[in-house]
């Protein structure tokens, strides 16, 4: 994101061919057995000889200046081996870098991992301790004396934008405004995205609808809390085992923050217990390295759940205004939005992504989007699955629903009439290539779900989502063993647990050997060239491009071996059905050679067989999805029950269909949780009141019905197998789809997230009062 497309980026044209492995559902999923038997090694499972336990002291205040920090008593406690605070880390200049979908600024990153001048949220790290036991480390935290000057704070995004709001950063002048504002404010940046002539668009409109929406921050809900273990050796080398979505990016950040050479930092990604964008940022890693350096011992740090909630990034809370116009025939003529995104303590929310994708589902001529990135006294936001998109879809997809009703059109037909398709000019830049949005709408319309009858207080809602897929730097190695089996070393972290299997299937397809003969494993930062984070749905889409490239290089090497054996030129050998064969009858009558046969003779003919890929993938293929949901509203408690749910999405090509269905279902369930109950609740002191899964209510299994899924396959033209990213789209439509369904059921439009029972009940009562009043007026 934010980088110009490189002319040297890799595209491999789509190849239509019969597939043997891709598209099947292997029973031997690469990660499953170790996960269900408890053998999978997560960061907190790693133990090193002599390791210490590290703990973080966190701010109890939403905003305060730090007057002094006295660690002497903590240092004197027997068993404590090191204490660090701001003085142990170098300050950083302003310098921006991509970290997943979001950008980071190193001046802020160092302040976020360890407060310097001030604390800016409840949970902000102030000091860290390493001790021989966790209990001693915890006791030591209580002995650290921090003198604070407590300052006024601001939590809500709209409050933070007011002229009289407490300003978090005195040096923050709104970027993107000309001339530069005279006074600092919490508005870190203003951005725009425009297409056509918005005024003209509204002049052409016969129906105009304008609405305002507010959403609360929501948490990714990964099960594994952040955990790291660092070992800094006398040679000035740091090894870090950690749960991350991008170990190469973490290596770069650790090296930068601690002023070390990249080559002296090795990051080993451990099995990941969920990420969803929440593991895109360093929190504990640099602290563990410095504690290890200071104590001369390995240091392990594991967050408690309340630390995860208080101090790591959720998604933004937002205030969104959407105004759209259409003709009576249902053609959208204008689409306008104002997005106010809370970024937390430091600038840099998902606003840039949201701004440029607000309306990309529709083929529009006139678009105008203005966005503000706003600092507040909350933890710095992180990415969360389609960062920034669900909140804005809440606005757009419910306004679209209102427009469809005003036009007297079915909401799917309305969308079909305006659907983005090949050639649609996006407001983020490129024209769309072949995409499957229309197919998702048509398949939704034909789905048996739509034939289900609805009872009293039941309603049906529809919404669609779009997400583009990152390409970016990707590396992989395929090694062919002496027995003819293959090992793929990949560098894009398998965040979902499915991409390693998909990679194995792709290597098997390329080499022409059974899936069971391919082992896939994650490589650490010393094993491969740089890989960008697994973010932006790129894991399988981009990772598989590297797997294909590496496989094809290994194949070229195998053809070379056959050519040397047969004493022909390498271009006289072809690879077909897992065998090197003479390219034609004129080459000679040679028996085709299998991978195993070639591997056996590889040494004599020049050395072992491997293929490497170090590529920059151009793009991962934009994705579209359409969701249909039925709800039942309890008019007396405001409870909303999800009765039926159907999700249809374009996957380009489903490598491992069962796993894709799982991804779809997971996204829908996260979206259902977001829609109905999830929110961060801060009290008037700016302290988080629900830092745990008891009162931060992600859905449990009995809260959701079976999620029906259908996969549309419109191939990505720049991928040899047509694969698109699929991870993020499924979380975008649930919030508006459920809002539309609630309206269909009981006639209320909810625009404040979450749509929790008290809000639903209040809206129902307000509507009853309104209805009575209007009936009274009519009677007069």
């Amino acid at each position, binding site marked *: 994101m934010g980088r110009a497309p490189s002319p040297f980026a890799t595209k491999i044209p789509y190849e239509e061919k019969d597939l043997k492995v891709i598209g099947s559902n292997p029973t031997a999923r690469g990660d499953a057995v170790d996960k269900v038997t408890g053998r999978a090694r997560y960061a907190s499972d790693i133990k090193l000889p002599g390791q210490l*336990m590290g703990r973080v002291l966190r701010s109890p205040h939403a905003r305060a200046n730090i007057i002094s920090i006295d660690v002497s008593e903590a240092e004197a406690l027997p068993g404590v081996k090191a204490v660090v605070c701001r003085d142990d880390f170098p300050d950083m200049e302003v310098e921006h870098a991509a970290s997943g979908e979001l950008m980071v600024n190193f001046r802020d990153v160092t302040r976020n991992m360890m407060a310097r001048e001030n604390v800016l949220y409840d949970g902000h790290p102030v000091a860290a301790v390493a001790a021989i*036991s*966790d*209990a*001693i480390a*915890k006791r030591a935290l209580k002995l650290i004396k921090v003198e604070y000057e407590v300052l006024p704070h601001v939590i809500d995004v709209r409050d933070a934008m007011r002229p009289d709001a407490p300003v978090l950063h005195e040096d923050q002048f709104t970027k993107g405004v000309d001339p530069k504002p005279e006074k600092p404010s919490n508005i870190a940046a203003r951005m725009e995205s425009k297409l056509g002539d918005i005024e003209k668009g509204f002049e052409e409109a016969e129906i105009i609808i304008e609405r305002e929406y507010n959403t609360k921050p929501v948490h990714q809900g990964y099960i594994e809390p952040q955990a790291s273990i660092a070992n800094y050796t006398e040679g000035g080398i740091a090894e870090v085992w950690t749960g991350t979505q991008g170990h190469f990016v973490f290596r770069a950040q650790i090296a930068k923050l601690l002023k070390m050479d990249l080559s002296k930092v090795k990051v080993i990604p451990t099995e990941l217990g969920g990420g969803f964008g929440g593991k895109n940022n360093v929190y504990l890693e640099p602290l563990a390295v410095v504690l290890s350096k200071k104590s001369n011992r390995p240091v392990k740090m*594991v967050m408690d759940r*309340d630390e995860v909630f208080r101090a790591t990034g959720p998604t933004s809370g937002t205030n969104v205004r959407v105004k759209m116009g259409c003709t009576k025939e249902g053609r959208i003529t204008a689409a306008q939005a104002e997005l106010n995104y809370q970024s937390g303590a430091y600038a840099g929310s998902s606003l840039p992504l949201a701004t440029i994708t607000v309306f990309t589902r529709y083929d529009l001529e006139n678009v105008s989007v203005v966005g503000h990135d706003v600092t507040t006294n909350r933890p710095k936001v992180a990415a969360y699955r389609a960062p920034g998109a669900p909140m804005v879809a809440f606005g757009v997809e419910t306004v679209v629903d209102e427009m469809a009703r005003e036009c007297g059109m079915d909401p799917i037909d309305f969308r079909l009439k305006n659907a983005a398709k090949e050639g649609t000019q996006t407001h983020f830049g490129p024209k769309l290539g072949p995409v499957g949005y229309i197919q998702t709408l048509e398949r939704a319309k034909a789905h048996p779900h739509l034939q289900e009858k609805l009872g009293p207080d039941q309603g049906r809602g529809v919404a669609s989502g779009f997400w583009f897929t990152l390409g970016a730097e990707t590396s992989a190695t395929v090694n062919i063993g002496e027995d003819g089996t293959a090992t793929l070393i990949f560098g894009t972290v398998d965040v979902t647990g499915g991409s390693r299997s998909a990679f194995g299937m792709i290597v098997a397809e390329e080499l022409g050997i059974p899936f069971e003969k391919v082992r896939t494993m994650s490589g650490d930062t010393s094993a491969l060239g740089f890989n960008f984070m697994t973010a932006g749905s790129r894991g399988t889409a981009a990772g598989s491009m590297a797997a294909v490239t590496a496989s094809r290089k290994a194949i070229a090497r195998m053809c070379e071996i056959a050519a040397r054996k047969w004493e022909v030129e390498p271009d006289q050998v072809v690879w077909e059905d897992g065998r090197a064969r003479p390219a034609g009858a004129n080459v000679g009558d040679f028996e085709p050679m299998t991978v195993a046969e070639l591997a056996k003779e590889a040494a004599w003919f020049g050395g072992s067989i491997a293929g490497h890929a170090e590529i920059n993938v151009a793009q991962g293929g934009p994705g579209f999805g359409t969701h249909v949901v039925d709800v039942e509203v309890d008019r*007396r*408690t*405001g*409870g909303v029950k999800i009765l039926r749910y159907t999700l249809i999405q374009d996957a380009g090509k489903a490598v491992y269909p069962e796993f894709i269905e799982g991804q779809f279902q997971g996204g829908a369930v996260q979206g259902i949780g977001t829609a*109905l*109950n999830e929110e961060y*609740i801060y009290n008037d002191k700016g302290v988080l*009141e*629900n830092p745990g*899964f*008891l*009162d931060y*209510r992600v*859905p*449990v299994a*009995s*809260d959701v019905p079976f999620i029906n899924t259908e996969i549309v396959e419109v191939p990505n033209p720049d991928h040899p197998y047509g694969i698109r990213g699929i991870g993020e789209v499924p979380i975008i439509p649930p919030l508006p789809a459920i809002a539309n369904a609630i309206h269909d059921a009981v006639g209320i439009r909810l625009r404040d997230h979450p749509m*929790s*029972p*008290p809000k639903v*009940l209040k809206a129902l009562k307000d509507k009853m009062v309104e209805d009575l009043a209007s009936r009274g007026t009519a009677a007069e």
Partner: protein
Amino acid sequence: MNCEATLTEMRYEAPETLDAAIGLIGAETGVAKVFAGGTDVLVQMHLDQIEPDLIVDVKNIAEMREVVEQDGSWRFGAAVTGKELMDNPEFNVAWPGVMDGVRLIGSVQVRGRATVGGNLCNASPAADSVPPMIAADAIASVVGPNGRREVPMAEIITGPRKTSLADGEIVVSFNLPKRPPNSGDAYLRFTPRTEMDIAVVGCGVNLTLDSDGTCTAARVALGAVADRPLLVEDAANALIGTKVDDDALEQLAVAASAACNPIDDKRGTIEYRTEVAGVLAQRATTKALERAKS
């Protein structure tokens, strides 16, 4: 790992008699904590909310682990797990409303450990097994250094995390009276989630009908709408002498809502809790009525 470090500095005892348990607790100069299922105690220890010096595990004490029926009345030990009660078909038939509450505690895994005694002594105003036990007119048998006393269920919890138990006293078992014919009970709660949640409002109803369907006795208890679970006599009086018709249910809802004295917190607002208390009282009554008639 937290646990390991904390537990090494703490004594754990698992006596086999009540006398031994009472003696251990009495002799402890620091903080002693009675431990049954541990589903609250261990969580509170992990959250550093409590730091006990002595844990007295009561699961080896026979009286605390029994479920006994005698002439239609039931006695079950305070350390009997939710799962054990769920696996007792006769008890489920006798007190379905009490079991509505037990079935809502935590999750399958939690109910495998959690006990009604622990649910009571944890003293949450939102404890799910407490309102139906109050509605059932259960009596808690409490043993301490000064002997045994029988305490009505509604008198144990006196506020959030506060009980009327004296120092060194343990809730040992519960007695449920023999039920007249045509009796039924039910418990309903409202939570945003279906499981693993804390009641925003809970309501237990226990009623008895005569042969022509008139309500002759009723008890209505509410949870999570005040600093402690409430026995609401006005709500019961709205039912007694009626056929539990729509008028009676309307009066019941008004009385239930009027009895509420809740707080605004992260789990619900005063306005919401007060209104939903009336709704749940009606729904729980309807369910209890069906059971009384069946």
